[in-house]
């Protein structure tokens, strides 16, 4: 497998994405340079694709990922990995808002912090954030796991329907309709196994596992005042 270099600069993104897909289809590893934080890079990449973005990317990078292995050298903007089905995304810097929105499977691993609402409406898969997860992490998520190693911002796991938010480190506040529960040893083992594979294994993590309190599953308008935040 040889490496192909694709340069973004101020070129039309459609043209760049076509070039990326053509190089991947020939079985090459793709290195993308001069990314300039531009949007929609590497969307809808196929199984087996191997691609690395040198620098920072803008919105929706790796969206609709269907099994590609994607690495971003620095930051990603909004909604990295939105609606991805499978594959892996590694972000070496900071991840902007709505990381992994509506994702259904696969893994997103962020070495820095994640912005607000990571894992919003998530339906499956795993998000691992080595830093802190921002405001309203896991907002209305249905399934899957968000794992944060350095704490969580305000309104953590707000309006969680299903799914799990695992936090090692301080949680600024819990969002509505979520609760901290004691994880079983098998669950901890499963989380630690995933972290081990990422080279982050550490048996000293003090986990707080957050799940839905399930009161919003049966919303009654007469209870609305319990949910209003203002």
């Amino acid at each position, binding site marked *: 497998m040889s490496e192909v270099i694709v340069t973004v600069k101020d070129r039309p993104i459609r043209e760049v994405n076509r070039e990326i897909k053509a190089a991947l289809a020939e079985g090459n590893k793709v290195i993308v340079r001069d990314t300039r934080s531009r949007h929609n890079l590497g969307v809808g990449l196929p199984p087996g694709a191997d691609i690395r973005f040198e620098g920072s990317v803008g919105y929706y990078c790796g969206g609709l990922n269907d099994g590609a292995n994607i690495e971003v050298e620095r930051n990603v903007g909004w909604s990295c990995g939105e609606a991805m089905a499978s594959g892996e995304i590694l972000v070496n810097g900071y991840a902007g808002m709505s990381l992994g929105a509506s994702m259904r499977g696969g893994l997103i691993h962020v070495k820095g912090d994640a912005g607000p609402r990571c894992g919003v409406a998530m339906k499956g898969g795993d998000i691992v954030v080595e830093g802190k997860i921002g405001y309203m992490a896991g907002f209305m998520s249905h399934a899957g796991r968000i794992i944060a190693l350095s704490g969580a*911002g305000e309104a953590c796991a707000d309006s969680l329907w299903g799914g799990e938010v695992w936090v090692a480190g301080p949680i600024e506040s819990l969002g509505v309709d979520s609760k901290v529960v004691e994880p079983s040893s098998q669950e901890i083992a499963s989380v630690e196994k995933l972290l081990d594979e990422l080279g982050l294994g550490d048996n000293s993590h003090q986990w707080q596992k957050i799940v839905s309190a399930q009161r919003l599953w049966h919303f009654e308008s007469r209870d609305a005042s319990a949910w209003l935040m*203002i």
Partner: protein
Amino acid sequence: MCGIAGRILTAPGRIGADLVELMESQRHRGADSTGFALYGSPLDTGYIVRAMASNRDRLSSDLQDFKNILIENNSDFISDPTWDDADTPHVSVRMVIKDPNDFAAWARQADTICENLEMQSVGRSLEIVKDLGGASEVADKHNIRDFIGTHGLGHARLATESSVSPTASHPFWARPFPDVAIVHNGQITDYYTWRERLERKGYRFMTYNDSELLAVWISDQMSQGLSQAQSLKKSISQIDGVFTYLISDIHSMGFAKDRWAIKPLVAIEENGQMAVATEEQAVRMIYLGEEVVNNYDGPSMTKTWEIGTLRKAA
């Protein structure tokens, strides 16, 4: 959608060109209209007035009315007004005037009587220029790229709930406070409640653009003696809606962000210089390397940047 930007230099430089770059790279966020709040080296005395005349054919009589009101307030044009020579009915006019006796009283009178010549900014330094179209079109028409100054704001508008017109574009001047301007990305949901409240206190609204409310609201806070930083903080609990807005005056620039943390803001801050924008790719047009960006992503955030101390010496 809309996009906003701000830029601070440590010494007077090509602030106009930088702001055009910041806004042109965000034109996909809205190109109904684009506007700039530009801060040049401040006058010691006198004010620069930027105004929009609605009817080119009657510009000379509107300027005469404007001059009459200046004279009534012990002011006058210091130099002859200048304006663009485009073929649009609306005209962008620049005037330099002597200090009126009572600034607020004069501004109120001018706003009331000169309804065909709407003041868009008044300041020792501030000049607001706004017009229809994207950044490059507005820049070409009004020579924004040649503007030399220390700092400024930019706005690209995608109109949602009010009309598209040159005067309903951003930035908005916080009349009657010289040199104060805002740009806003978002929607103010309690607009009418606040508008009625402020109108009862005697404030005047020139448009139905919800963002104008922020400018008027800030004026009201300043009249009560609040600083820029205090006003920004207070707005988060007082104003309902989705907003990230930037405010600037001669000495400082700041932003406030709502409780829901919806509208992004990204900055590169280096050695007293700063570029801030809705999107990271915009600030990367100013800083072409891989400088560290600060994402102001959290809820209920504010920040104030001081403008370099070099400007007095300039």
